[in-house]
């Protein structure tokens, strides 16, 4: 346990070295709650001189870390003394947008959405049932449903993954034409559906639309 006076500014404020100015401000506020003159939490724990010393240290730490210029200089000192690595510095770069729903998992979503059926999904063409259906010239909603069932994927999973309403997916699978949207949108939905099952999206969509638009 290092005595307080010997700690570096980050340790005094209980901060990681990569903390943002917002975190610094917040940590200083918390520290004042602990060490402030009127704080009930540290009442009688420190003598008057100790407390004054700690508060002075905290203020110095805060003023150093909140200013970009002085913080950089201070970090350089710590890096050259070996207390922190170059990469642990705070960088105020432009922030990249974070997608609201797809945190990290976007690209591997099949893995998380269909954990049990992943193996089957990897090679849908290897499934004899699927192969047989796909060899047809036109595909009905029933065919799509059979493929999906053969691959062991539930409608809910497809809905969750594609963000298409379950009701609409059901309409596609059961060929309820009156509930389907315009062919332009329908094509896009079927493509997404096929893509989710790792089928040839363009081929499937074209063959389905051919069948769906015929009786209309």
């Amino acid at each position: 346990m290092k005595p307080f006076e010997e700690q570096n500014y980050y340790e005094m404020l209980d901060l990681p070295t990569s903390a943002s100015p917002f975190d610094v401000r917040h940590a200083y506020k918390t520290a004042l709650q602990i060490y402030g003159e009127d704080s009930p939490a540290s009442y009688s724990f420190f003598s008057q001189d100790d407390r004054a010393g700690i508060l002075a240290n905290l203020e110095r730490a805060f003023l150093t870390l909140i200013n970009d210029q002085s913080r950089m200089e201070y970090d350089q000192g710590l890096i050259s003394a070996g207390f922190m690595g170059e990469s642990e510095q705070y960088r105020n770069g432009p922030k990249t947008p974070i997608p609201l729903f797809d945190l990290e998992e976007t690209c591997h979503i099949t893995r998380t959405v269909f954990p049990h059926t992943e193996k089957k999904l990897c090679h849908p063409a290897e499934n004899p049932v699927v192969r047989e259906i796909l060899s047809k010239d036109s595909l009905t909603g029933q065919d799509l449903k059979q493929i999906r069932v053969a691959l062991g994927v539930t409608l809910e999973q497809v809905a969750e993954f594609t963000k298409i309403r379950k009701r609409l997916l059901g309409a596609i699978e059961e060929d309820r034409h009156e509930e389907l949207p315009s062919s332009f949108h329908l094509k896009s939905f079927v493509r997404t559906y096929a893509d989710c099952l790792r089928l040839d999206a363009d081929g499937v969509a074209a063959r389905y639309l051919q069948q769906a638009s015929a009786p209309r």
Partner: protein
Amino acid sequence: MYRKFYDGDVQAMNGEENPITNIWPIGGGKGGSGKTFLTGSLGLLLARQGFRTLVIDADLGAANLHTVIGVAYPGRTLSDFVNRKIETLEEAVMKTPVPNLFFISGAGDNLDVANLIHSQKRRLLRAISKLPYEHVLLDLGAGTSFNTIDFFLISNTGIFVTTPEPTSIENVYRLVRSVYLRKIRQVLREEAFRELLQEAVMRSNGTSAKNPEDLLRMLRTCDPVQGERLEESLRSFRFKLVLNQLRKQDNPQIGTLVCRICEKHLGLRVQFLGNIQHDDRVHDAVCRKVHFLNKYPYTQTATDLREFCQRFLAEREDNPPAGPPVERPGETIRITANG
């Protein structure tokens, strides 16, 4: 099943590396902060969950735990054991109205029981660590007398009770520091401790060392090996803190902050177990001599108490009982006379 922990009880009573993790001393420095009430409530809740629980009133000379748990006339007491009217401590164990909850009273006709002499205390501490119960809760008295602190150090899992008032927090820090100092004394040899004190006085120009943490720091500079060892044994503590009688206008963060101060400035691990709301009906329940949890089970305070008990049990599972203590050469541990 729990017998197995009691083999090393001689070391256990010395307070070093205590192998028994199911003794819970409950102390708090200030009187009126709710130690007795919390002990009674925790005992009741543990017993209801099916644990064989023993509560001991170790507030010698000012015992009143029996009232809280509904035993109006304690029969045999700790003082009978201390005065050798009964041979084993188990004879002093009484049943309570609650199944699974057992009780040893500290009340007694012997008015002098508050001032235990050293050999009596040794015998008592040893007997307590031998008792075959799953949880043994020790209700300690206010103040920081040697008696209180030695009872507190019977296990390294003491529970501090405080209220959000500065007076109470002040006394908790007082108790924490006293326990800390006592531990330093136990780990170091007596001569080494005296040398350290003299050194401390010398370095600080005649004024005696104010804080035990200064002593530790000094020791680390004079004798890094000893200092390291001492710090390690201080780290073995698993103290807990409960904030009792929190009123609506109080800052609910105080407990967490107190724990952080102890960790940062004393190097002691103190876990915060939660706030317990103030309720005037506690007074009412005590006056009627019924337990609050029975009379007012659907209040915020009762909920807080149950949550406190849950958190307490969860923590216990995280830290399974430690192995038998390792004898280190050159280490003498004493509980000093008078103390």
